[in-house]
């Protein structure tokens, strides 16, 4: 009797193991299939004979990367992207900090309508916004360029200032557009985050003699750091990956950003250089990964124990 029972239970475990093994095998295969493009990009970027097929490289080379920075304006693209997206992220965080705090603390009747209005901006597909936004930017552009022309007659200076502050084909315009696109989500994240910070902290600070600014500086910002990290990470990664806005609002090669550089390299008439393109893709991916690694430290750093909950 006992022997029979044992053997049947062993059978069950065996079939159990077998089915589990099959499931894992399927999952591994699907994962490999999904990861194939990433493998290809990384391998081809370092492959002296990169092609459109996944292959084990014959050797390892950094020539593709050297090519990007030496023969093309790779450095300029990276710097443009970093400056524009970085500034847009910082600006987004400043506005989202103030806006999120105000929307969290106010009890006004327009709070809900406004919050949903803000998220509506996020729901509208960006291409639908191009025409009206372009119109507004064009108007502002004429105005700022008029101002610049008044300010200086030196053509070189005019060009320099125009590249900085133009709303179309200028850094300022692209920064503001990125900021506007990322702000709705960031405000929502910050508002939700401030909701979770009890008002007691601010009242305690007020009784400790802190001014409004000191309360923000010493109490609210440190407490909201994980929220800022989350909002900043989303803003940075979204803006970094945005292709449409730089395409619409810049034309001069000096303002070209990474995604545009990549796009135009891909469109070149002569033979496609897969090594060059994959190396560029690696460079394009890196900052997003770095941003995530940087924000992760703050994201997990939740505070507790200040108030008894």
């Amino acid at each position, binding site marked *: 009797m006992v022997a029979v029972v044992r053997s049947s239970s062993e059978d069950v475990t065996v079939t159990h193991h077998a089915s589990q093994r099959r499931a894992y095998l399927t999952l591994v295969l699907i994962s490999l299939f999904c990861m194939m493009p990433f493998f290809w990009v990384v391998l081809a970027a370092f492959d002296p004979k990169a092609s459109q097929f996944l292959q084990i490289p014959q050797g390892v080379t950094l020539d593709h990367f050297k090519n990007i920075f030496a023969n093309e304006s790779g450095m300029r693209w990276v710097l443009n992207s970093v400056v524009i997206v970085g500034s847009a992220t910082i600006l987004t965080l400043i506005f989202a900090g103030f806006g999120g705090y105000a929307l969290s603390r106010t009890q006004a009747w327009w709070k809900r309508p406004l919050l949903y209005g803000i998220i509506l901006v996020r729901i509208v597909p960006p291409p639908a916004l191009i025409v009206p936004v372009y119109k507004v930017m064009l108007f502002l552009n004429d105005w700022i360029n008029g101002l610049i022309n008044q300010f200086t007659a030196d053509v070189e200076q005019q060009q320099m200032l125009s590249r900085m502050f133009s709303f179309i084909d200028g850094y300022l315009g692209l920064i503001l557009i990125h900021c506007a696109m990322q702000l709705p989500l960031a405000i929502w994240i910050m508002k939700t985050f401030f909701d979770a910070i009890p008002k007691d902290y601010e009242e305690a600070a*007020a009784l400790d003699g802190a001014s409004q600014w000191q309360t923000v500086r010493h109490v609210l910002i*440190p*407490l909201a750091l994980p929220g800022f990290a989350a909002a900043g990470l989303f803003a940075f990664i979204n803006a970094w990956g945005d292709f449409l806005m730089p395409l619409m609002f810049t034309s001069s090669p000096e303002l070209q950003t990474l995604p545009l550089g990549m796009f135009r390299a891909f469109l070149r008439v002569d033979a496609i250089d897969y090594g060059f393109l994959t190396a560029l893709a690696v460079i394009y991916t890196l900052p997003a990964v770095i941003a995530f690694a940087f924000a992760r430290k703050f994201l997990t750093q939740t505070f*507790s124990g*200040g*108030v008894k*909950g």
Partner: protein
Amino acid sequence: MSHIELIDIKKNYLGTEVVKGISVTIDQGEFAVIVGPSGCGKSTLLRMIAGLEDISSGELRIGGKVMNHVSPDQREIAMVFQSYALYPHMTVEENIGFALALKKVDKAEIKRRVMEAAQMLELEHLLERKPAALSGGQRQRVAIGRAIVKRPKVILFDEPLSNLDAKLRVQMRTELMRLHREFGSTVVYVTHDQVEAMTMAQKIIVLHNGYVSQLGKPMQLYREPENTFVAQFIGVPKMNLLRGKLQGNNFYLQSGQVVDIGNGYTSGNDLQLGIRPEHLKLQATSTQGGWTVDVVERLGVESFVHLHNATMEQLVVRVEGDCELAADIQVNLQFDAASCFLFSDKGQRLLRKPAIEQAAG
């Protein structure tokens, strides 16, 4: 001088009056406890003193100066929050020293004063820790340290012990009283726990529905409650109230039972007889006592016997020591006539005649 005067203070929230005209004076160095059930306006009143809420009408003076529109940090007060509100990103030392750092006090001086407060509260070994690494009682001490380091003239406490377990609460009560003696600041302490009020206060202010129900020394409230609310709020278990009518010295309960409450009261209908559980005596069990035992709570040092009569009126009797009575047993009660209170139908205390003459003279 740091006495606090509240003159007809009122507070409106969106058209609802929460605090309905409170006039109280708290003397310098006094430990005043504002006590009342939740929703009576006690926290709002404290927050108005702190400057965290606007005062709708009336006048608040601290040390003789009108403070209605003075910002919280200019009032020379400190507050201990119910939630403690310790800054979680700062160490204990930074938390305690924050107010001084904001005032740009010299660093060495901050360190000295933080140490002094920490020694008083036995926190020296925790100065480097963050609030998350502290126990509830330790957080409570840090919150107090943050208040006393400013050397305020007035310290406000908003239900500071309500998050602690029962044992710690008893310990902190005595500690707060010791601190008050050493420190000498005026203290305004809000709680819903009448035990805290009775044990700590030099003056109790009982709030009810936005009004002051009665104020006075703890034992004064216990011995001479002005109305049924205070009578039942102060003292555990609460005072027994029985409805009925008075003829001469005899109070007739609805069940027809008669209680002799002594002379001096004016006869009348629709009255309430009040007597504390400790002023009732159980008499030898009998078969026709009129009171039936419901439950006996045996605590060892004392016992509380819950009783009801024919008309289902309930009473609690305190018995010294242990009391082994089975449920449903009939007992007789003896009322201590001198300790009987009489209240009107609306709950106002009625006085015996000689007492009225005394009060008038």
